[in-house]
């Protein structure tokens, strides 16, 4: 699903966020990305969804060289990638339901289907009573879950999640992971960037550690 070959990203003046990254993620895999703050996790996710372009190297997503895609093709690929951003990128003057609906509206889902899907997700994330609340009025943890709901709503093939449990207590974390696991079981490839050891240690998924923008280890979770 994801193929990276010798990818690097530098920012002006000369900050090297990533360098010499080569790895691949299989279709249907759940993949963890860890590393200290500033290691380059967010940058890596942004490269995968083409929010940023690499300074060098090659990135393929679902068989497409994502940096060569333009216009409609890029839009259609993005519809199949759900991203929960570290800074959420919610529209604070819109309700929770409207925020989640956006990712389905752009691929012309029927209003009824959108409504049902929104209810279902809010139910799974214990946010049913926030349906009509403006997202600007939510707590960080609630906003985080709304961002996640928007990412998975359109049933994308690839889900990128940046720090999904940063503001959550143990039981809410468990619900979030259940939601992601369910999406994964349904066939979605999932990449999770996190500091939270509790969500990957007990799994048998692959874990890639970054430090200073390089791959420092690529292991499997403790359960294996």
């Amino acid at each position, binding site marked *: 699903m994801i193929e990276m070959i010798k990818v690097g990203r530098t920012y002006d003046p000369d900050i090297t966020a990533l360098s010499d990254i080569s790895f691949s993620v299989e279709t249907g895999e759940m993949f963890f990305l860890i590393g200290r703050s500033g290691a380059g996790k967010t940058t890596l996710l942004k490269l995968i*969804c083409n*929010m940023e372009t690499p300074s060098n190297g090659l990135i393929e997503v679902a068989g497409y060289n994502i940096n060569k895609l333009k*216009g*409609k093709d890029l*839009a*259609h*690929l*993005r*519809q*199949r*990638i759900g*991203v929960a951003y570290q800074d959420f*990128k919610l*529209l604070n003057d819109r309700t929770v339901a409207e925020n989640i609906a*956006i*990712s389905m*509206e*752009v*691929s*012309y*889902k*029927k*209003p009824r289907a*959108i409504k049902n899907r929104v209810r279902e997700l809010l139910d799974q994330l214990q946010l049913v009573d926030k349906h009509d609340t403006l997202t600007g009025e939510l707590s960080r943890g609630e906003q985080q879950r709304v961002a996640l709901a*928007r990412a998975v709503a*359109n049933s994308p093939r690839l889900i990128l999640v940046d720090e999904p449990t940063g503001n959550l207590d143990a039981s809410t974390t468990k619900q979030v992971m259940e939601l992601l696991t369910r999406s994964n079981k349904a066939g979605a490839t999932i990449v999770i960037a996190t500091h939270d050891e509790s969500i990957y240690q007990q799994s048998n998924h692959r874990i890639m550690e970054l430090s200073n923008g390089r791959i420092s280890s690529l292991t499997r979770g403790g359960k294996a």
Partner: protein
Amino acid sequence: MNFWFAVLRQTGRNLRQTWTSQFMTFLTVSLSVLIFAFFYLIYTNMIGAADRLSDDLRLIVYLEDEPGVEMQKQLRRKITNFDDVEEIHFISKAEAYERFAKQLGNDSDVLADMPKDFLPASIEVVPLKSLRGYSQIKLFSEYLASLPGTEKVQYGQEWVERFYYFTRLLTIVVLLSGTLLILTATFMVAYTIRLTIMGRQAELELLKLVGATNSYIRTPFLIEGLLQGLMGSIIGLSALYGLFQWISSHFAGPGLLNLFHFNFFPPVVIASIILGSICLCSLGSYTSIRKFLRI
């Protein structure tokens, strides 16, 4: 859910969010359509009146002497040498006398003492319909005046001249108000759409990230411009029609309006004005999209 449903819903959101500036733009567009259409209406009616008047336009060439048959032939040839004409009538002194007597009617006895040949002979030239415009008529009359044996040429110069300058002034006013319409329609619409785009930068950014196609993002703004043009022109024209009806009913009877036989625009012109303002407003929104919507 199809594309147009999504786009219309998005347009509705845009309109709701910036309705005050949308409303101001709508008013400005209607007002400029009203101003332009007002002058254009007067203009077309003037042109119509001018047309009808020039149908009756005749140049009368007064001759020094009664022309003989040979002379008539020659004059006819010389006139048609300059330009084809609709008709040429020779009016002998006797005919002129009879016509005059007829015009006087019951008072014709005042002519009793006059000799039958006191009026000059003349040629009545009916110019071609294509010979329009004051300067052409003037040139033609100068040419006629230069023919041998002619005394003077008459065609109601003063009246034609005034009418001509008035229509020319109106042309300028129409052009100016047309320019005003173009400026307000394009710039005001471009400006409001720019406001919308600026106010929703975050959302537009997000739409791109979740995979909205360019047309999904752009089309609502184009529709907004289109609606401004459509609504603005319809309201502007309706206002003018109301004004027209009011004037017609209040100033009916003998007067200027009846003289000119005032008409409202035919459907084709109405459609063109609406279409034109739609195009202008869409153009305005298009330029804003081009400039401020980086996709």
